[in-house]
């Protein structure tokens, strides 16, 4: 049996950033430091599938997305698109690929040029890629706008960004990505800047695009959104995926203590669902100094409460870096105690 290659396959991706030492550090010849933004991340996104990458800020979500989009170069690992290894393609070779994978930014206010009418904004990528005659371009612009839910397109073509609501602006940004007819969308916090009443419509739009066959990698810090709209959820902590599985399984039956803590702190819609939040102390730790052993152990409630010790596992938690293990069908966690 021949199966079509997966849309996106990411394997053991590692991306690091040099950390500026500052003048004092450089003069003192302090060793150069690096931020371990992404430390061995693997996942796949199929056509018609939405994967949500969830985690606190600084855990490496955006770097993962940027590496996948080849906006940042990885130290090691591979990114495959439709089976083709694109990790080391050069700029010119990347060009045709850029059309097939598109990024949607967080802030629809930043991503649209205020001087451009909707028509120009959405047409721009076609001009950059020298696609179509003027007539074809205008047809594609109309089609993209209507696919993004701005129908009839005539009503919007000549407007400027300031003449649009926040939701309409994000739809224009999505149309700008759709006009190249990509196969993969990478959406980095696509609704976090939008008003509640508008979020649902943008998420529903992404959901319908997924149903029409697009693969979507959605980055979000909001587990509720991920739970409702994604097929699968990958929870990131300090540059690693610590749990991955079907969205409902991850939310209903979380296996990693970090995921469990995250779930308790997500505010629930129903006041009767109040739970005592399991609040982890401190901020998400610094990717420059990754703890030894399990990277989560300094904040882990299992270690802090002594449960890890009772089970005779504390040494391992402190000393041995856990790998992802499959615990149920398609559901993995990287925890010695799971």
């Amino acid at each position, binding site marked *: 049996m021949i199966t079509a290659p997966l849309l996106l396959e990411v394997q053991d991706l590692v991306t690091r950033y040099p950390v500026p030492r500052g003048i004092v550090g450089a003069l003192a010849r302090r060793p150069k430091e690096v931020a371990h933004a992404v430390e061995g991340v693997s996942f796949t996104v199929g056509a018609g599938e939405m994967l949500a990458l969830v985690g*606190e*800020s600084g855990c490496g979500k955006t770097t993962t997305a940027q590496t996948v989009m080849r906006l940042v170069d990885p130290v090691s690992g591979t990114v495959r698109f439709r089976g083709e290894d694109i990790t080391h393609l050069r700029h010119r070779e990347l060009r045709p690929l850029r059309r097939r994978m598109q990024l949607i930014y967080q802030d629809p206010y930043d991503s649209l040029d205020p001087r451009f009418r909707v028509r120009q904004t959405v047409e721009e990528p076609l001009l950059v890629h020298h696609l179509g005659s003027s007539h074809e371009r205008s047809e594609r612009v109309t089609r993209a706008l209507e696919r993004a839910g701005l129908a009839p397109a005539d009503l919007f073509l000549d407007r400027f960004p300031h003449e649009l*609501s926040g*939701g309409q602006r994000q739809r224009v940004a999505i149309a700008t990505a759709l006009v190249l007819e990509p196969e993969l969308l990478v959406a980095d916090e696509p609704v976090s800047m939008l*008003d*509640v*009443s*508008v*979020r*649902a*419509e943008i*998420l*529903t739009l992404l959901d319908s695009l997924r149903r029409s066959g697009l693969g979507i990698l959605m980055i979000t*810090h*909001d*587990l*509720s*959104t991920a*739970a*409702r*709209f994604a097929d699968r959820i990958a929870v990131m902590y300090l540059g690693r995926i610590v749990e991955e599985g079907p*969205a*409902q399984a991850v*939310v*209903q039956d979380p296996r990693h203590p970090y995921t469990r*803590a*995250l*779930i308790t*702190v*997500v*505010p*629930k*819609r*129903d*006041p*009767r669902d*109040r739970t005592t*939040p399991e*609040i*982890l102390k401190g*901020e*998400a730790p610094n990717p420059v100094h990754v703890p030894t052993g399990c990277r989560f152990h300094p904040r882990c409630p299992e270690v802090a409460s002594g449960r890890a010790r009772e089970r005779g596992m504390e040494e391992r938690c402190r000393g041995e870096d856990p790998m992802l293990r499959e615990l149920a069908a398609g559901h993995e966690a990287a925890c010695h105690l799971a």
Partner: protein
Amino acid sequence: MNGSGPLLEVQGLHVWFDLAGGRELHAVQGIDFDLGPGERMGLVGESGCGKTTAILAIMGLLPPSASAAGHVLLNGMDMYEAGEDSVRPHRWRDIAMVFQGAMNAFNPVRRIVDQIVEPMELHEIAEGRAARVRAGDLLELVGISARQASRYPHEFSGGMRQRAAIAMALACGPKVLLADEPTTALDVMIQAQVLELLTGLTRELGLSLILVTHDLPIVAQTCDRAAVMYAGKIVESGPTEDLFHTPRHPYTRLLFSATPDLYGRGEVISIPGTPPRLDREVLGCAFAPRCDMAFEPCPSVVPRTLPVAPGHGARCHLNDPAMRSAS
């Protein structure tokens, strides 16, 4: 103190902004509520519905282009009638606020401790060494080590700056705290820390809290009571449980259905359309054009607030038998 009554009473509060060309924007259109000691009330609604303007008006900190009318009573004293000279000693001492985006509003070149000490000295709560000790205590109260007091804002993370902003608002020992979107830019874990802090302050210091947010689940988890604002008016208010389980205004119901639930229950449905402009007079119910249950009187008759259950009121014709039978 006048003992048992509410700490803060707001009656018929209106705010207008002067716009260019002699036009006016009616940002707050007659709101009423009161707040008892130790109570936590949520003020929710889409952006632009007037939440920030309302609490700035309560604090008496509106910009010069704004004018306000109505009554704001703090411990029974009518702050609008008393005039600025009488109100000034009470601001920050009896009622304080955490501004929207406060964590980004620290002066970058001054140490955190100095910025917390400033209001204390201004209001003659404490000065010099005593004030610095108190600032350290306040930082400890919000979960920041007093040893970090002499750091600069950029040396703090966002979550720490937000907590420092809360410490600053508490500097003069207020009884009422108004917190405007205090967790909006924060991660869930840090958000949980800040919400736990605010809840703890109401329990331990007996502080009364108004939590302003566009995020309903935050209110559902933190507040006993909430007021839902739309286009400058409170359209529904009551116990948070009632608002979720038995909403009596379609806007409240739709806001909840537009919010994804962690356990994936129920469809997530957006609310079509946008709120009306507030620089024009709105006829009838401001929500009618977006409402899925609008009927005959809605576009033309302004609904009144009617009680629907104990402590629960809504501004919707659906609750008015006279309107329903007439149409």
